[in-house]
């Protein structure tokens, strides 16, 4: 029976973190070989090959690797193994990773641009992942609930298996450090598919204006393009009200739009014709105001081909790239107008970075730079 089976193969260079492989189907069988480690001296904890069948359950794998002797043995990865994914629906989240008294760790106010999250056990994230916070009560009346619900990207700086940093006004006076005495189920959740439809709404944590050029830094990638038309929606508690799209005090009902003139990083952009801010933009709402607190937002309202200033940049119609993680990755789309809304949906499988029952410090997906060959199959007939 191979009438409707789907077969695919390929290879990738491991980053040391879970590897997503996009396919036009979700396989029910995956096997892989780490060519680099197979071509190296036998070393304890090296995983040479592995396979997964959907009947094992998501996130499992049977592997072959070297034990301490070193001798080649079979082992099972029961967490962080191989799984399939279907990234089509937004608003999907991972499990709550506890901080505070339940999780034995917390959130530190590191600097004016950084909050540092530490966890007692490995948090399972990797740089570029997106998260939201919840239940950030240090006491009943203090904590960091003002930032709960905002999507943040995990930064590469300060990253370890039990710590990571997110960009925010980390020295804001109204934020209270979350530590092991925090009440309730303080924690965070990974946003599984944060960039399926882009450009989406982004959440600025700093906005400054110098000589008519505004600089905006967001908590996660904005995916704007140079020449893109944008608009702000800023609640009065944050200041900078004269950036707001509406109402325009001079011409009521006329939306106020700006143009992106540069994108220095995935999370930062500048815009032209910025007015002097009516008041400074500061994200430091009082803790007690968090019920119903609205977040400042920036939204795309037009692509680069929508008039306005003449565009003199590069190709207007490339296949779009999206900052899903720390680097822009190609989407499955064909040529598109830059800055226009696109779908970034995908499906396929993931080779995780879990370890085995015996090979307890092994890494399924190998170390950064390892070449991994894979095969994926969707069978058209399964007996059990």
């Amino acid at each position, binding site marked *: 029976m191979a009438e409707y089976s789907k077969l695919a193969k390929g290879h990738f260079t491991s980053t040391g973190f879970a590897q997503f492989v996009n396919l036009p189907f979700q396989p029910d069988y995956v096997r892989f070989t780490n060519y680099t480690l197979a071509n190296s001296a036998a070393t304890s904890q090296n995983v040479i090959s592995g396979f997964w069948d959907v009947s094992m359950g998501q996130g499992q794998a049977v592997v072959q690797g070297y034990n301490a002797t070193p001798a080649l043995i079979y082992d099972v990865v029961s967490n962080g193994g191989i799984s399939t994914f279907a990234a089509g629906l937004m608003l999907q989240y991972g499990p709550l990773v506890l901080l505070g008294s339940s999780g034995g760790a917390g959130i530190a106010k590191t600097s004016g641009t950084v909050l540092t999250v530490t966890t007692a056990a490995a948090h399972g994230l990797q740089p570029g992942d997106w998260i939201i916070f*919840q239940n950030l009560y240090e006491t009943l009346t203090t904590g960091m609930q003002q930032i709960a619900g905002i999507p943040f990207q995990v930064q590469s700086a300060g990253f370890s298996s039990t710590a990571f940093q997110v960009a925010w006004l980390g020295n804001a006076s109204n934020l209270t450090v979350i530590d092991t005495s925090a009440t309730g189920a303080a924690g965070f959740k990974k946003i599984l598919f944060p960039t399926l439809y882009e450009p989406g709404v982004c959440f600025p944590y700093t906005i400054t204006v110098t000589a008519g050029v505004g600089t905006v830094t967001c908590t996660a990638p904005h995916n704007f393009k140079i020449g893109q038309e944008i608009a702000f929606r800023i609640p009065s508690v944050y200041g900078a009200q004269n950036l707001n799209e509406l109402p325009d005090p001079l011409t009521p009902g006329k939306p106020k739009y700006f143009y992106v003139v540069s994108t220095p990083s995935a999370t930062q952009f500048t815009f032209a014709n910025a007015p002097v801010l009516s008041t400074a933009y500061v994200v430091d709402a009082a803790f007690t105001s968090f019920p*119903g607190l609205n977040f400042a937002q920036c*939204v795309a309202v037009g692509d680069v081909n929508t008039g306005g200033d003449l565009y003199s940049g590069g190709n207007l119609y490339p296949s779009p790239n999206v900052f899903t993680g720390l680097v822009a990755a190609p989407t499955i789309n064909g040529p598109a107008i830059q800055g226009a809304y696109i779908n970034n949906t995908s499906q396929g499988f993931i080779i995780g970075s879990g370890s085995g029952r015996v090979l307890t410090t092994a890494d399924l997906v190998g170390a950064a730079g390892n070449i991994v060959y894979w095969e994926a199959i969707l069978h058209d007939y399964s007996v059990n």
Partner: protein
Amino acid sequence: MRDYVVSAASQINCGGGSNGDNPTNLSPSDCSLVATTLDTNNAYKFMSGIEGMDRFGTGPIRSSYFMLSSTELQTDFDGLVGAGIFNNWNYPNNSSALPSEWGSIFNLRILTSSEAPVARGASANGQDVYYNTVLGKQAITHINQDGFSMSLIYRDPYYSGMLAQNATLAVKFAQAQALTQDTAIRNLLCTRLSGTIL
């Protein structure tokens, strides 16, 4: 289309409710605020009003925007009866009510669906967050590419495989969606007053 709107349209968190979460549960003041926002932004309403009639238990209905909500919020809507909300059976004449229309509140007519977007356990306090999309007429559009309207494809087994064992059934379509006027659409985010499992 649903997830696109969730991603692209700006958001208003409900703040008038009493459950102490962010967003709070839906309140009349939140509905009033979002309708006022769209009015201030010169959005076009979908429905003209319904004139009051001499019938028990009815009242006039204002001209309205549409609010697309989850069926799971109907317990909260029921709790707002008497606080400005009308079930469609309290309309003077419900001939203009759509099949999915639950009722109206101020300048919003509420359409419910079990497929409405819900972010499970995503609020500040860990409750489900409901995306109520409130929109004016000029807010969004949907484009089907010429020659690629949705088609349902069926090929019988004789054409689908060498052994004529299996048939093929498929749907294909090419479409695009866009916000045509971002000021005429808002996602009003709320939680439920009670966390009771439905």
